């Protein structure tokens, strides 16, 4: 409850022009927004653009934002929807999906790499619901609302996605 009140105060401050308050919102929500975009797109540059664009959309709509609503889910909804759009567009262009275009680091994390590779083999719509459910901690009902899907579809995508991940891992 305290965290929610604190966030509402930051949103109010940002609406009144406080750069410090907006920076705090950025710090609080960038990591998950960026991570969610990356896990759906599997492209670090695209994830950066998508998450950045979501914050810019937030700035454009800040004056109209209802402070009673939580900021994070609203931002994350923009991120995930844009990430799905981006992934579909890339698939249409016929590009090979890349797990990562950057060189490997010196300290690879087998668990993380395996998970990324397994996620990359899922359809983007399945990836998105898994990321929303388990990274962003949205309920199936909230996911259904955000993606404009029946709740049953969300549940079935979750189930099929998890089954496939389990087989892959």
């Amino acid at each position, binding site marked *: 409850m305290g965290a929610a009140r604190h966030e509402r105060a930051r949103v109010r401050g*940002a*609406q*009144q*022009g406080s*750069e410090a308050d*907006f*920076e705090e919102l*950025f710090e609080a929500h*960038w*990591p998950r927004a*960026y*991570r969610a975009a*990356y*896990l759906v797109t599997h*492209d*670090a*540059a*695209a*994830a*950066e*653009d998508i*998450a*950045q*664009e979501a*914050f*810019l959309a937030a*700035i*454009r709509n*800040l*004056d*109209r934002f209802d402070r009673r609503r939580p900021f994070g889910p609203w931002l994350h909804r923009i991120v995930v929807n844009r990430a799905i759009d*981006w992934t579909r*567009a890339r698939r249409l262009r016929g590009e090979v999906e890349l797990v*990562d*275009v*950057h*060189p490997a*680091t010196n300290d690879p*994390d087998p*668990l*993380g790499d395996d*998970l*990324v590779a397994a996620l990359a083999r899922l359809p983007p719509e399945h990836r998105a619901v*898994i*990321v929303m459910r*388990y*990274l962003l*901690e949205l309920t199936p009902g909230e996911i259904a609302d955000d993606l404009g899907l029946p709740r049953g579809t969300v549940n079935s995508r979750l189930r099929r996605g*998890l089954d496939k991940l389990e087989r892959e891992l």
Partner: protein
Amino acid sequence: MKRELEEVRIPRETEARERARAVVLSAFAERETVPRPSHWPRIAAIAVALAALGAATLSSSGRAVLHELREAVGVKRAQPALFSLPAPGRLLVSSDAGVWVVEQDGSKRLLGDYREASWSPFGRFVVAARENELAALERDGDVRWTLARPGVRSPRWTGTDVDTRIAYVDRTGLRVVAGDGTGDILLVPGFRGAIAWKPGRPFTLAYASSSRVTVRDVEAGQVLWRSRVRPAAAPIQLEWSRGGARVLAATPRSLRVYDSDGGTPLDAGPGMDRIESAALAATGQAVAFVQVGDRLSSLWTIPRIRPDANAARRLFSGPAGFGQVSWAPSGEWLVLSWPDADQWVFVRADGRGVRAAGNLSEQFRSRSLPRIEGWCCAR
């Protein structure tokens, strides 16, 4: 699952966060806190005497086209970043960080630390120059070959599916090399001016220094024609139409479009204000140019080149200096550089729309507005 998703390592996460923070906080600082109804783009009638070229007259339709004038520098309601291009194709961009490819969806890739570059004939490759190197690159930045040469600049690529040539200028003069990096020759010793290939074959090169334009068949070694531009000034720009039927030579005081045999369907000048840049549409039927005056810069088009009368239409005006202009491959849009606003302004060629993207220096890691080297390949 949650913990595992949170532990997935993302390449260069910290750098991404810092870049985004800078862009986002800059956008926040510049936002308008009080929403107000407004028209976008804001259209303001302006009474500015036509200071265009002497031969260009303002048509009645020209009077009705879009004019944009703002007290402050920059397009109001510009996107705070480049999210997408308004027309199909890819941009090749150079900044302090190097040369970039920007896809239509706005995604961008840094090819490497090069100063300037241009597309191969079908946009599959890029030829790039750095201080002492010419390089042919894949679109993902992989290097096909390099050539060590002193003071390389102005690389230009032409040819067909099966055979290509690259022209460039270095300290020895104007040189030509095959598309695979072999057979490098010095074509014009001591040359320092503008160059442009006629698309396709035979390999025909236009080059200009002082006030003379020369068109030459490179393989036959034969000069096809020469022409002097008047008033005498070195062309700042040469550009062929896509089919090679016409070539534009722009100087700071004049515009001249030649047919491939040297005829001149457009010969306009001198004007009152300096011509900063110009571009010939792929069809060869239209020209866009930028004039910079003491207080006002304008983007003009001559939408239909005719030998007898040419009507210039002002598409967009603003304070402070405009920079380059380029056509989209489809010919429906133009992109205009506005360095003082740190913006690229996308203007519909029919004057019915303006979009702008700002904060470009930051996005392309540059101290100044990134330069558009080419807009390629609608398909």
